[in-house]
C-alpha cells in the first residue's frame, strides 16, 4: 500500500475519467460554446439565442415563456404534492399492521417507466366518460367531462381573454393533469425515504409525549416534522432536480402540445426536430443554470458529511 507507484491510482481511475470526460465534461463545455453560435454552430451570434428565449418571438412554434413557466409549475406543485403525500402516507402506514403491503402498493409505480406510465394515464384521461376512468368518476359526481390533456383552460381564462391571447396561462388544467401523473409516480419515493426516517425516531420519545397528553397532531407537528426536516430537504432537492429533467412524461403524453412544453421537451424539439443547435444549446444551459445552486448545496452538505465521517 505504501510502496505503490504514483500512477497506479490513475490507472484504476482511467476508464471512469475517460468516459466522464467524453460524455459529460467535454459536451457540457461544448454546449455552452454552441449556445453562443448560430443554428448550425458556424458563426458567433453573441447572446441572440438567449434573447430568443427571453423575448419569445415565435410563441406558436416554440413557446419559451410557457416552457419556463411550466418548469416552475412542476418544480413547485410537483415537489410540494409529492413530499406532502409521501409524508402523510409514511406516517399513516407506520400505524397499521399491513404497513408492508400498503407501502408496496404506493411504491410499485416507481418500477414503471415514464413511457409506460404515459400510456396508462393517457388511457385514464380519455375524454369519453364510458372509457376514461377519471372522467367516469367526475361525471359520476355530476361534473362535465374534461379533456384533461388538451384543456388549456384555467380560473385565469378571463384574464387572458382580456389581455393578449398568447400569454401563458399559469394554471392550465392539462399541466396539472400531467403533474398529477408525476406525483402518482414519485410519491412512493418520498414515502420510502421518509418512512425510513420515521423508523429512526425512538418510540420512547413518542410514548413519552403521549403519556404527557400530547395530541397526535401535536406529536406530528412538534416532534415528527422537526426530526424529519433534514430528510425532507434532501428529498425535496432530489425532486426539484428531477422536475428540471422532466421529459419522457410530457413527450409521450402530449408531445408538448397545448402549451404543456417544459424546457427539456422544447430543447429536444429545437435541437433534434428543428435542428437549431444554437437555441437548443441555450435551453440546455438554462436548465443547467437552474441546477447549479442545487448542486452547490449538495456538495456543501456532502463535504459536511465527510468532515463528520
Amino acid at each position, binding site marked *: *500500500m505504501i510502496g*505503490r507507484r*504514483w500512477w497506479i*491510482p490513475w490507472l*484504476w*481511475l482511467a*476508464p*471512469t*475519467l475517460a*468516459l*466522464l470526460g467524453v*460524455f*459529460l465534461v467535454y*459536451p*457540457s463545455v461544448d454546449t455552452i460554446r*454552441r449556445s453562443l453560435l448560430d443554428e448550425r454552430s458556424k458563426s458567433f451570434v453573441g447572446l441572440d439565442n438567449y434573447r430568443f428565449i427571453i423575448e419569445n418571438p415565435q410563441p406558436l412554434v416554440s413557446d419559451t415563456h410557457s416552457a419556463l413557466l411550466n418548469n416552475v409549475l412542476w418544480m413547485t406543485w410537483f415537489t410540494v404534492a409529492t413530499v406532502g403525500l409521501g409524508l402523510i*402516507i409514511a*406516517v*399513516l402506514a407506520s*400505524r*397499521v399492521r399491513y404497513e408492508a403491503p*400498503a407501502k408496496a402498493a*404506493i411504491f*410499485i*409505480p*416507481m*418500477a*414503471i*417507466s*415514464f*413511457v*409506460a406510465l*404515459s*400510456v*396508462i*394515464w*393517457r*388511457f*385514464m384521461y*380519455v375524454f369519453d366518460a*364510458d*372509457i376514461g*376512468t377519471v372522467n*367516469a368518476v367526475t361525471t359520476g359526481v355530476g361534473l362535465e367531462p374534461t379533456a384533461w390533456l388538451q384543456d388549456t383552460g384555467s380560473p385565469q381564462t378571463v384574464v387572458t381573454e382580456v389581455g393578449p391571447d398568447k400569454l401563458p396561462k399559469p394554471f392550465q388544467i392539462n399541466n396539472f393533469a400531467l403533474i398529477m401523473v408525476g406525483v402518482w409516480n414519485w410519491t412512493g*419515493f418520498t414515502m420510502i425515504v421518509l418512512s425510513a426516517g420515521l423508523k429512526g425516531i425512538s418510540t420512547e420519545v413518542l410514548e413519552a409525549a*403521549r403519556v404527557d*397528553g400530547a*395530541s*397526535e397532531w401535536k406529536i406530528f407537528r412538534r416532534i415528527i416534522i422537526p426530526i424529519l426536516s433534514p430528510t425532507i430537504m434532501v428529498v425535496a432537492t432530489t425532486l426539484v432536480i428531477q422536475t428540471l*429533467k422532466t*421529459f*419522457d412524461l410530457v413527450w409521450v403524453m402530449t*408531445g408538448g402540445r397545448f402549451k404543456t412544453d417544459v424546457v427539456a421537451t422544447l430543447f429536444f424539439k429545437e435541437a*433534434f426536430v428543428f435542428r437549431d443547435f444554437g437555441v437548443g*444549446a441555450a435551453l*440546455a444551459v438554462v436548465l443547467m443554470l437552474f*441546477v447549479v445552486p442545487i*448542486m452547490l448545496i449538495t*456538495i456543501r452538505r*456532502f463535504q459536511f458529511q465527510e468532515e463528520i465521517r
Partner: protein
Amino acid sequence: MSRRNPSTGAEAAAVPRARPLTGRMRGLAARLPLHLTLIGLMVLWSIPTIALLVSSFREPTAIAASGWWNAITEPFDFTIDNYEKVLTQRGMARSFWNSVIITVPSTILVILVAAFAAYAFAWMRFPGRNVLFLVVVALLVVPLQMTLIPVLRLYGNVTIDQELPLLGGNVFGVNSFPGLWAAHVAYGLPFAVFLLRNFFGALPRDLFESAYLDGASDLGVFFRIVLPLSGPAIAALAIFQFLWVWQDLLVALVLLGDPDLAPMMLTINSLVSSFGSQYQLLTAAAFISMIVPLLIFFALQRYFVQGILAGAVKG
C-alpha cells in the same frame, strides 16, 4: 391524528391482545378513519395499473365501447390477441430483444468501471483525490440535455458504418449498440462511483492492512475481498442501472434512428404517435415493457429500497 382519544389508541397499538373485546371494538372504531384513508390511497395507487392490465386482455371492440371496469362484471371475455399483434406485427418482440441487448452490457460495464474508480477513491492516496471525487459527485446533477448535442455531433464523426456481427446495427457511433452502451455507462457512472465508493470506504480498514501485509496486490484485494463483500451495494446498483437503461427514452431517441434497433420505450413512443387511441395495442405494449421491472421489484424489493435510500433516483 385521526384518533379522538390518543391514549386509547396508543394502548391499542401497544397491547392489542390483552384488551377485552369491547375495548378492541372501540379502538377499531377510533382507528376507522385511518384505515379508510390508507386503504383508499392504496386503491387509488393501484387502479391505473390494474386498468392497464385488464384492458390489455380485452377485445379491441370492447375497449372502444365500454370502460375496463365492465370487464370484471360482464361474462368473462378475455383474449391474448392484443399481445400476439404487438409482438408480431408491431415489432415489440424485436424491441424486447433490443432492450435486453442494450441494457445487460450497460449494466455489467458500469459496475465494473465504477468499482475500479471507487476502489481508488476509497483506498488509494493520490493528490487531488477529494476534489476529483467531488467533481464526480457534482456531475450527478448535470442534465443529460446538456450533453446530447455534442455527443450526437461527435458520434456523427466516429460512426463506423459496418454491420456489427450477431447483434446488428453499426459497429460504433449512431445507430449502434456499442455507441449506446458507452453513453449509458458514462451517464450511469457518477451515481455508481458515488454509491460504491461510500460502500467500499465503510469496509473495515484492518481487512485491507492484513491483506497487504500478507503481500496481496491491489487486484487481489479488489477481486478477493472488496467485490465479494460488496454484494448488497452492487445488487442495488445493478437494479437501478438496469431500470434506468431499460426505461430510457431520451438517449435512444437521440442516438438511434433505425426502428430495427429500437428498444421498447422507443417503439411504444412511436406506437403512441401513430396509434394514439388504439388502446388494445398500447396497453399490451406497455405491459410487456413493465414485466421485467415488476419482476425485479417483487423479487428484489429489499435491494430496491436500499438503493433508493442510498440516493438512487430515475435519471
